């Protein structure tokens, strides 16, 4: 039972629960990104063809609800840095999901956070540092307040 749970229980929570041992830096991540991610997300994380990953604009506000042309990125929309680890571990790269080792994932996360000007290029991402990264969009999210009834929300 314990082994079965451990094999599947890979989720990572915002407080860092579930993060495994390991570490990586943006410099290490850049090389992995070039080999395993750039084909889908572009050389610098902005070119596509799949989801744009990098870009902090617009910095001053959070006008996504007002402007349908804005593109959501890790830097301008994702509220938690731990989600990057969780998601890369689950689902990336598309053609070899679940194949990245913890050191590779930490390095890629460091690279993406650096590309989004959230951490320095020398920052080491690991189980202690990653949950402490404060994402720019962290406080933009609110809970659903729709309740049915006459009001349109």
């Amino acid at each position, binding site marked *: 039972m314990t082994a079965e749970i451990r094999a599947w*229980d890979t*989720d*990572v*929570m915002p407080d860092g629960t579930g993060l495994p041992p390991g570490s990586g830096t943006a410099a290490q991540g850049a090389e992995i990104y070039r080999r395993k991610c750039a084909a889908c997300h572009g050389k610098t994380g902005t070119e596509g063809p799949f989801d744009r990953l990098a870009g902090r604009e617009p910095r001053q506000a959070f006008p996504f609800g007002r402007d349908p042309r804005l593109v959501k990125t890790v830097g301008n929309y994702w509220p938690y840095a731990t989600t990057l680890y969780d998601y890369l571990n689950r*689902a990336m790269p598309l053609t070899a999901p679940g194949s990245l080792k913890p050191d590779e994932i930490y390095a890629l996360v460091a690279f993406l956070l650096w590309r989004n000007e959230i951490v320095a290029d020398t920052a080491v991402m690991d189980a202690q540092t990653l949950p402490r990264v404060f994402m720019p969009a962290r406080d933009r999210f609110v809970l659903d307040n729709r309740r*049915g009834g006459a009001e349109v929300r």
Partner: protein
Amino acid sequence: MQDAPLSRRVLLTSVASALGVHALHKAGLAQAPGQPRVPTVPPDPTKVPGAPLSELGRRSPFERPRRIAIGGAQGSSFAPLQDLCGIVTPADLHFERHHAGVPAIDPHRYKLLIHGMVERPTVFDLADLRRFPSVSHLYFLECSGNGGVSYGGARPDLSPQAIDGLTSTSEWTGVPLATLFREVGVKTGAKWLLAEGEDAAVMARSIPVDKAWDDALIAYGQNGEAVRPEQGYPVRLVLPGWEGNANVKWLRRIELADKPFMTREETSKYTDPLADGTARMFSFAMDAKSIITFPAYPVILPDRGWWEISGIAWSGRGRISRVDVSTDAGRRWAPADLQAPVLPKCHTRFRYLWNWDGTETTILSRAVDETGYVQPTLDQLRKARGVGTYYHFNHIREWRVRKDGAVMFGGEG
């Protein structure tokens, strides 16, 4: 042609001009080269013996309803709403939305793990799940992105399928998640559960525990047979009335916790930016909605006179209590007939007899649910949410009926 108002040729001609022949072939709506144009049948079926019994039924070769698939293994396929009657969606036409394709899962090796804040972490196999007392309910499932094309960038040449085909209704059979929760002994501090799939995206969503105690279902049956692979075979989560993505398919793991997990699908996706500079998260319930599926593009009404306007309405918050129809661009509204049974969190078929006088007009439908919520106009929804919002596009759909009988989607864009 003249006496067959909805003939295949009429439909195909108007669809072909809109979509192009290539898209039609992809959608299965056009004849493939070399195939006979019409299926071969005897001139008088009473004069020849019919076909023998068979192990598996097939549709009439004259009927070719097809989903429209956009985006490959990470995309969506839209159910042909205009080809369906009643409220149930045939399982092979149920809409699809996958994040990393359809996994192949051996039911004999299937396991569901429930762990975390529980007294007894437990692995259930399929036989275990089927041994519990089962229930069956008709529920709709709708992708929360459904209708996005009608919120901005709508075109007149959109069919009900192209606009709102990411909704379907099935009879789902399974064991209430509450039963399994009692079996494993969910601890009192547990507030959220993580539901995780066995697809290549290991798709996961955090769900409030209250929903599990309320009406969540661990489903292995769909419309009388095993759940289809595209819908989560062998087992999926069904959260009645809640956005499709949270109804995790190919369910393999449920973890109880005191906080949400903040997965990618509930943070960077499936959150709704609002005009006030925030974004709504965990916006699960699908608000009341309706769409007229006949007459609708690409139908061309051949003459004035009596026509039955028909469509579907649904609400993630309970029963549809009323559907109003307007045949004069929203000036006057009249209640449509609702086909019984009207079930909570399920498609409801509505019908309204209309005597078309041959003039140009706009027809609309407006659903009201048992909470008193009224399906909003596009302007109301944009005012409440902003033009850049995403997901939960439940505003009123309009169809413009031209003098020549052509029916075009009338949403602005």
